[in-house]
């Protein structure tokens, strides 16, 4: 009981200190800034309810991020190949030279794992171990996935930069 209460306090600390990043990642995955607060709220309700299922094999924060990612994925808007921020144009209808549209298109060509690694790394500034725990993959896979994803995005941006 005390261990559970202690972990709930840890969850509260993470919630209070990381809320802007939590919302941002949820917005990136779900494609909706408006929905992000509710998704994070729902994820933390689940976390508190299921705290006994956290076995302590990895960092608690990684376990929390896993729940946030899963809830945000379930809350993703359909039908889109990649969830786009609602205020941004869909890649296929973006005007030529729209860097945001090209980035969206490049993201849509990545695998889901690559996108999630990018979002967790850049929007939440998570270390490899926490990302690994969040996505249930190894730390080495996180590094390799990030490198591949960055290369794909760099190529897309270079194409854009080369266009007059």
């Amino acid at each position, binding site marked *: *009981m005390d261990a559970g209460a202690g972990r*709930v306090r840890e969850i*509260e600390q993470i*919630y*209070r200190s990381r*809320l*802007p990043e*939590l*919302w*941002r990642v949820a*917005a*990136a995955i779900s494609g909706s*800034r408006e929905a*992000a*607060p509710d998704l*994070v*709220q729902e994820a*933390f*309700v*689940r976390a*508190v*309810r*299921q705290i*006994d*299922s956290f076995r302590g094999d990895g960092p608690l924060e990684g376990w929390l991020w896993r729940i946030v990612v*899963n809830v945000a994925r*379930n809350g993703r808007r359909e039908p889109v190949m990649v969830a786009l*921020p609602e205020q*941004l144009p869909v890649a296929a209808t973006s005007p030529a030279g729209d*860097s*945001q549209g090209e*980035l*969206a298109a490049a*993201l849509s060509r990545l695998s889901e794992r690559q996108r999630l690694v*990018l*979002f967790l790394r*850049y*929007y939440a500034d998570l270390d490899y171990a926490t990302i690994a725990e969040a996505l249930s993959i190894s730390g080495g896979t996180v590094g390799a996935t990030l490198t591949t994803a*960055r290369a794909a*995005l*760099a190529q897309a*941006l270079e194409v854009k930069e080369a266009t007059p």
Partner: protein
Amino acid sequence: VTDPIAEALDEFVPAFQSAEGDWQAIVNAATMPTAVVPADRQSRHRLVRAWHTQRRRRPLLVAVALLGFMALAAAAIAVGLGAFNGIGAAQHPQTSADVIDPATAAYLKDHLAGIRLDTARHIGQLPDGQNIYVVTGTQNDLCTVVGPPNAFVQCGDPLSNSHPATITGDYAVNNDPSIRWVIFGLALDGVTSVSFQPTQADGGGPAGPEVTVPVNDNLWIYKSNDASEVDVLQPFTAHFADGTTVVEPATGKDCAAC
């Protein structure tokens, strides 16, 4: 040195400049039973909409007069409310034990204006001592109310031979080390048990073998000590005393057929 990828991503989903959460709401929700049947949530929304529509159409004086009339009518109601048909545990004159506590009643009034609290009938208790009531709505909905301390309501169509049981809610138990999760629902008179496949929430797979849960006084209550949150994999089956069974159609969440 700048990182163009980081900059592009930064523009793609701009940072939230301020984020104000509500931790207490999380704690409250985590200990509150949760509705599990989307169809019934739709019904609940219908109930609220109906009340709002009525409110717009009727002048205040007429509404006051109607409220007075309804109060008198409600006082006269003892048995035979349509929404309670087939729920023997609710077929009794209203007594003090049927009156919903003020805190739960206030919650219900705030969240579900069309509910008729004066029709409440107490039909049982959950393992942690919370009371279970059935209540009608303005459109003859059958509502199940739980409380105190964690007020909860779920409304849907009345029970019938073709809809003999409900999955009303599930919640985490915090005061009993032998029980982690409780799932409960209503059943029509004559239904002796319900059977279903427990499953881990969020599609985590089966949580043990299929179970058959007895019905007592129109209530079935399934208790699990599984570490992970448990749900009911729908559809589920109601078993009548005469040996017949009715499969309750899947309603969405954890639905094997949809």
